[in-house]
C-alpha cells in the first residue's frame, strides 16, 4: 500500500517535467539573484565602501582638513600618536555624540602614514589601560568613561566628546542644547599639536566672581598652544610667577581688595590682562569700584551705563542693546571684517590719570548716534541719565617701554562668554578678534598655532524678521489645513462624479 502510493507520487512528480522545470528555474533564479545581490553588496560594502563614499558636505564633516594633514606631515615619520577611546567602539554612531568623531578619527588614521593609531579599549573589561596611559593617575581616567585619551611620548590629553561641539546655549531644545558647530577636528588636532609641540606660554583665567563661564576661551587659548589654568578667588589670592596672561572674563561681582593689590602689582611689573564685563540685570547695581581703580591705572574707566544704539543701521534686529560695533582703524588688522557684534555693552571710557603713562586707545566703537543710559535694578532707564554721542565698547591700553603692561578691557561679553561663542561657533569674527587680542598679549611668546575651523553643522535658522508668528500660522493653515482639505475635497468630488458615470 505504502509502496504503491510512493510510486504514484514519484510518477506524478516525474511526469510533470515541464512544471518541475519551470519551478526549478524559478526557485533557482531567485536563489541565484539573492546570491548575486549578497555578493555585490558585500563587495561594495567591504571593498569599495570607503572608496565610493563621497563627502559632499560644505565643511567636510568627516574629512580631515589640509591644515591638519600638513601638521601631521611635519611630525617625524616615527612619531606615534595613540588615540584611545575609553569605551567599546560604538556600532551605531548616528544621533550619538560620536557621530562626527568616530568617522573623522578613521580619516586621521588614513592620512597619518602610520603616525596616528585609534583604538577603543573599555577600562571596565581592560582595567590595565588606565595605569598604562596614566601611571601617576593625575587625570583620574577611571572617571573619564566615554572620553578619548591622546597619548604622545608618555604625555596624555583627555578629550571629551562634549569638547567636540559648540552649542547654542541660549536655546534649549527638548532638554538638549542645539549643536551648531562641529569642533571635532579642531579639538583633536590641537590636542595633538599641544602634545607634540608643547606650550609656549601660560594664561590664568580668574574664576569665582560669578562669571559667565570660561570654557570656550580656555579651549581657544589652548588651541593657540597656550597652557590655561584657572585661578580661584580666595583669601590668599596670588598671581603665580609663571603667569603670562591674566584673563578676567565676565565677573558679575567686583574683585576683592586682595585681588586688587595683587593685580596692581602684576600690572606695574608689566603684566598682561584681558578684562571683559557687561551691563546686564545681573550686574546693573555693580559699579566695579576696585576693578575700575585697577583699569584707571591704565587710563581706562568702566562706566556704570548701558550703551544704547540709536542708529538703525547699527542695530541688529531693531534692538538698541544688540548692535554692531566698528573696529577702530588702529586695530583693523585684528579682524577680517570691521563690524563685530556687541550686546548689553557697558560704556568704556578713556580718562587721563596723571599718575599713569599708559596710552589708552579705543578698540571698538559705536555709531555717532548712540547713548549711554543708567539703568535701575528693574531695567528701567533712570530719567535724565541719557547722554548721546559715540562711545567705546572696548579699549586697549599699553605702557611705554620694553615688555610693557598691556590691557584689553571689553564692555561686552560677546568676545569671551560661553553663551556667545557657543552660539556662534569658533569661526565667528568676534572669536577671531579675541584671538588677535590674546596674540597681542602673548606677543612673541606664542607660535601661531594651527587654525582649524569649526565645521558648521548647518544652521537652519530662518530670517527672524520674516519667520514671525503670523507667518508660522500661515504655514499651519496652508500646509496642514488648506492643501489636505483641498485634496480630500477633490477626492470626494472625483469619487461622487465617477460613481455615477
Amino acid at each position, binding site marked *: 500500500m505504502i509502496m504503491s502510493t510512493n510510486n504514484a507520487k514519484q510518477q506524478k512528480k516525474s511526469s*510533470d517535467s*515541464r*512544471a518541475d522545470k*519551470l*519551478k526549478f528555474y*524559478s526557485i533557482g*533564479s*531567485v536563489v541565484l*539573484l*539573492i546570491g548575486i*545581490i549578497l555578493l*555585490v*553588496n558585500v563587495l*561594495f*560594502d567591504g571593498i*569599495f*565602501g570607503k572608496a*565610493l*563614499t*563621497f*563627502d*559632499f*558636505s*560644505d565643511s567636510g*564633516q*568627516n574629512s580631515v582638513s589640509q591644515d591638519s594633514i600638513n601638521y601631521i606631515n611635519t611630525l617625524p615619520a616615527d612619531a606615534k600618536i595613540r588615540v584611545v577611546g575609553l569605551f567599546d567602539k560604538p*556600532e*551605531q554612531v*548616528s*544621533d550619538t555624540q560620536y*557621530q*562626527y568623531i568616530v*568617522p573623522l578619527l578613521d580619516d586621521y588614521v588614513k592620512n597619518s602614514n602610520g603616525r596616528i593609531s585609534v583604538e577603543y579599549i573599555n577600562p571596565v573589561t581592560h582595567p590595565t589601560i588606565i595605569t598604562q596611559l596614566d601611571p601617576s593617575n593625575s587625570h583620574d581616567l577611571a572617571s573619564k568613561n566615554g572620553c578619548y585619551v591622546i597619548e604622545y611620548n608618555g604625555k596624555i590629553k583627555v578629550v571629551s566628546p562634549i569638547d567636540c561641539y559648540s552649542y547654542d546655549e541660549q536655546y534649549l531644545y527638548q532638554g538638549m542644547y542645539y549643536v551648531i558647530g562641529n569642533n571635532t577636528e579642531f579639538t583633536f588636532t590641537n590636542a595633538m599639536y599641544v602634545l607634540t609641540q608643547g606650550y609656549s606660554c601660560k594664561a590664568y583665567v580668574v574664576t569665582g566672581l560669578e562669571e559667565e563661564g570660561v570654557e570656550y576661551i580656555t579651549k581657544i587659548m589652548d588651541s593657540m598652544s597656550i597652557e590655561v589654568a584657572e585661578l580661584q578667588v580666595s583669601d590668599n589670592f596670588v598671581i603665580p610667577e609663571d603667569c603670562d596672561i591674566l584673563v578676567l572674563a565676565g565677573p558679575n561681582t567686583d574683585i576683592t581688595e586682595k585681588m586688587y593689590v595683587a593685580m596692581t602689582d602684576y600690572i606695574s611689573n608689566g603684566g598682561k590682562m584681558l578684562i571683559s564685563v557687561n551691563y546686564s540685570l545681573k550686574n546693573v547695581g555693580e559699579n566695579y569700584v576696585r576693578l575700575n581703580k585697577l583699569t584707571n591705572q591704565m587710563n581706562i574707566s568702566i562706566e556704570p551705563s548701558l550703551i544704547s544704539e540709536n542708529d538703525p543701521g547699527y542695530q541688529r534686529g531693531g534692538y538698541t542693546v544688540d548692535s554692531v560695533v566698528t573696529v577702530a582703524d588702529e586695530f583693523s588688522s585684528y579682524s577680517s571684517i570691521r563690524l563685530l557684534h556687541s550686546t548689553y555693552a557697558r560704556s568704556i571710557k578713556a580718562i587721563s590719570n596723571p599718575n599713569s603713562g599708559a596710552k589708552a586707545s579705543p578698540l571698538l566703537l559705536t555709531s555717532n548716534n548712540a547713548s549711554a543710559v543708567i539703568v535701575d535694578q528693574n531695567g528701567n532707564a533712570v530719567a535724565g541719565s541719557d547722554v548721546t554721542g559715540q562711545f567705546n565698547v572696548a579699549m586697549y591700553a599699553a605702557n611705554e617701554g620694553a615688555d610693557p603692561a598691556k590691557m584689553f578691557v571689553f564692555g561686552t561679553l560677546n568676545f569671551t562668554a560661553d553663551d556667545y561663542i557657543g552660539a556662534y561657533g569658533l569661526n565667528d569674527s568676534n572669536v577671531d578678534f579675541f584671538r588677535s587680542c590674546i596674540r597681542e598679549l602673548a606677543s612673541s611668546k606664542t607660535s601661531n598655532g594651527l587654525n582649524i575651523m569649526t565645521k558648521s553643522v*548647518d*544652521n*537652519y*535658522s*530662518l*530670517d*527672524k524678521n*520674516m*519667520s514671525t*508668528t503670523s*507667518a*508660522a500660522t500661515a*504655514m*499651519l493653515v*496652508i*500646509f*496642514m489645513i488648506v*492643501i*489636505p*482639505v483641498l*485634496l*480630500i475635497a*477633490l*477626492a470626494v468630488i*472625483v*469619487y461622487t462624479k*465617477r460613481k455615477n458615470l
Partner: protein
Amino acid sequence: MYAIFKREFLSYFRSPVGYVAIAIFSFLSGFIFYAQFSDGAVNIGSEVIALRSFFVVIVPIITMGLLSEDKKRGTDILYYTTPVSLFNVVVGKVLAAFTLYVVMFLNVIIHIFVTIGFGGTFGIGSFGTIVVFFFMAFMFISIGLFASAITDSQIISAIVSFIIILFTQLISQFAGYIGTAVNSIASSLGIKEGLASSMGIAIKNAVAWLDPFAKTQDFRLGIFSVSALVFLVSVGVLFLYLTFRVLEKKRWSQS
C-alpha cells in the same frame, strides 16, 4: 510597461486613494514643517527623515491594491494573455506607485522654496536625505508590491507590507534581541561561553547589516555612500523579481 504604468498611475486619481494618500502626506509633512518653522529653524533634511517613518503607513495604502485587486477582479488574466511581459507589468506597477510618491513629494519641494524664501538653508545634507528618501521609497514600494502579489485581499496585502516595513524600521532593535536569543540558545545547547557570545554578536551584526536606515544615516551630513544606495536598489530589485516570480508561478503551479 507604459500601459500598466499609465493605468495604475491614473487609477490613483480615478479613485480617492491617490488624493487621500497625498492628503495624508501633505498633512504630515505640513505638520513637521510647521513645527520647525514655528521654532524659527527649518531643516528640510530632518523633515524628510521624519517623513521616512511614515513609509509604514503610506506605502501599504498605495501598494495594497496593485496586484491583489487584479486577482480579485480577474483582470490579471490580461497580463498573461496579452503580449506584455509579466516583468514589465511588475515594473510598470512599481513605477506608478513611485511616481505617486514623487507627486506627494511636491509638498516638500514647496517647503524647500518657502524655506529658502524665508532666509533658511537647503544644504547638500538635505539633498542627501532626499536622495535616500527616493531610493527607500523604491525599495519599500517593491516590498509592498510583493505583499500585494501574494494575496487577493487588499487588507492582507496591506498588513503584510506594514509588518515588513515596520520590521525594517525596527531592525536594529531586533538585531539586539536576536543576538541575545542566539547567544542564550547556543549556551543552553552546551556551547562554550565565549563561542556562544561571539555567535550571538555575529548574528546580531548580520541582522543589523540589513538595516537600511543605519546604512544611509550619513547622507544627511552630505556624505554619499554608493554602497548604501546599491543596497537599497538591490533589495528593491530582489522584491521586484520575487513579485515577478510569484506572478509567473500561476502558470505552472499545480495547486
